[in-house]
């Protein structure tokens, strides 16, 4: 069992020593993320879903689209919510779990609201007048925790969105004066449009351990980290959001290096994700992610 939170000084020194030599406890280099495994379409009732594993961290994400009156005419909505409960780790019991969930949700919503161009939202509007729109609800749940939950949640939501099909609608003009337009939902699955994820960013988190920084930290490594920076990058290499958490301050030059590294790693990961989603869409294999882990 991985109760990585409680570490002795010797263990801490061991982790820091490994990071210094670029040989981490699982053999990775400092800037090597863990391999990602995913399966899309696992929840039949959701419009899109994804089960993702990154090392020991496993996340289930799903999307649901609903038609509603547009708050801003011509713009749809996309809201995220992340839940991290005691299921994932005993440290997320009660209030602690709620606080972590709230922080993850805030980071994701900030990234989606500020990091994506207006076209993404205007594509979600329905009809010419744009008075009705699609509201895409993205929800993720951390099932198992071994560090870097924000990255995994953002990747899982990206994949779930890539798997999402938005039904086509026909707007019929109201027959009476004053009656609003009627919306007819096209029922057949051929009339669904996939959600365009080319502008959706994902987070990459770097943790400062000793004098160096690592990507995709495990729970043990996070406990040794003095600072953490999460940077959201999209497929065009643009920085969409950033979030610094935990204790110590970072020197600006160090921060600049970390931003560059995050950009590079983020772009690589997006490429990998695209390939994995395409593969998962075409192959319908058995679910290996929620199988008993073999130690």
């Amino acid at each position, binding site marked *: *069992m*991985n109760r990585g939170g409680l570490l002795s000084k010797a263990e801490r020194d061991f982790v820091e020593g490994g990071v210094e030599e670029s040989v981490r406890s699982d053999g990775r280099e400092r800037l090597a993320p863990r391999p990602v495994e995913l399966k899309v379409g696992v*929840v*039949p*009732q*959701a*419009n899109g*879903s994804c089960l993702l594993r990154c090392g*020991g961290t496993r996340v*289930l994400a*799903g*999307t*649901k689209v*609903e038609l509603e009156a547009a708050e801003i005419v011509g713009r749809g909505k996309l809201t995220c*919510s992340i*839940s991290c*409960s*005691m*299921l*994932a*780790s*005993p440290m997320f*019991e009660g209030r602690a779990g709620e606080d972590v969930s709230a922080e993850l949700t805030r980071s994701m919503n900030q990234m989606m609201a500020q990091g994506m161009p207006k076209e993404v939202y205007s594509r979600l509007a329905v009809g010419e007048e744009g008075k009705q729109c699609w509201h895409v*609800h993205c*929800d993720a*749940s951390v*099932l*198992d*925790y*071994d560090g870097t939950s924000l990255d995994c949640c953002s990747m899982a939501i990206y994949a779930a969105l890539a798997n999402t099909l938005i039904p086509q609608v026909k707007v019929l003009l109201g027959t009476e004066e004053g009656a609003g337009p009627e919306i007819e939902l096209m029922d057949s699955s051929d009339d669904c449009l996939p959600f365009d994820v080319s502008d959706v960013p994902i987070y990459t988190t770097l943790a400062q351990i000793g004098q160096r920084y690592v990507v995709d930290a495990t729970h043990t490594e996070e406990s040794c980290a003095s600072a953490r920076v999460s940077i959201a990058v999209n497929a065009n290499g643009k920085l969409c959001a950033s979030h610094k958490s935990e204790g110590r301050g970072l020197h600006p030059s160090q921060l600049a290096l970390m931003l560059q590294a995050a950009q590079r790693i983020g772009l690589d990961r997006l490429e990998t994700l695209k390939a994995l989603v395409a593969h998962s869409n075409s192959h319908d294999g058995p679910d290996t992610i*929620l*199988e*008993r*882990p073999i130690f």
Partner: protein
Amino acid sequence: GQGRMSKLEYVDLSGLRIDGRRAHELRNINAKLGVLTQPDGSAIFEIGITKVLCAVYGPRECTLRSKELHDRMLVQVEVSTLPFASGEHKKRSRGDRQIGELTTMLKESAEALLLTSVHPRSQIDIVIEVMQSDGSLKAACLNAITLALIDAGLPMRDFMVACTAGCIDGRVIVDTNYIEDSARGPELVVAYLPNQDKVVTCQLEPKLSLETLGPVMEAALQGCKELYKMLHAMVLEHSCQLATNRGTFAT
């Protein structure tokens, strides 16, 4: 607006239900034990599309000393549903009354199932996450709890199994799906201990005539017994796999 929907035929003339099952047929079952790394015990129970994940922590020291019981273990249950688990998008809410009632029922069933006097002054936490919901949710949660407790190795009286039975259009049906649940006919959830031949939990809503109660209860218990055979075989296979991995016996 559109025309009125014709009345739904839950059991047609040839005895088939909406999803093609016979009246006393259960949906496909799948059980997986030990799926999570952090909890002491975990399991996923699937029946049809309904899928419930359960994790168990314990026995461990009580987090709140004031709640500690001197002669038995404290059982705490927490239930949450994924927002995309059912047909509509439902935001997570902590104070939902339905979830509260479900939590109480699960806690009482778990307390009846476990040998609580074996671990006094300690606590076990049962965390349930409903991944997919398509009818018979209460029964699925109860089954997931049994499997997770088995995976955690906690001392229990028996192998609790649960099943739902209902009565629609005068026909008794077992293991209702979402559409049948919404039919507003009576729904009986029964949790049963097969080796001791005892009923642990029995919840009925909304109401049922006394003459119909007998056959519906009988159908639910029959469903439980069938379920027990299947789940018992799955757990046995899982245990043999574990024993083989340890090298305890060769296959």
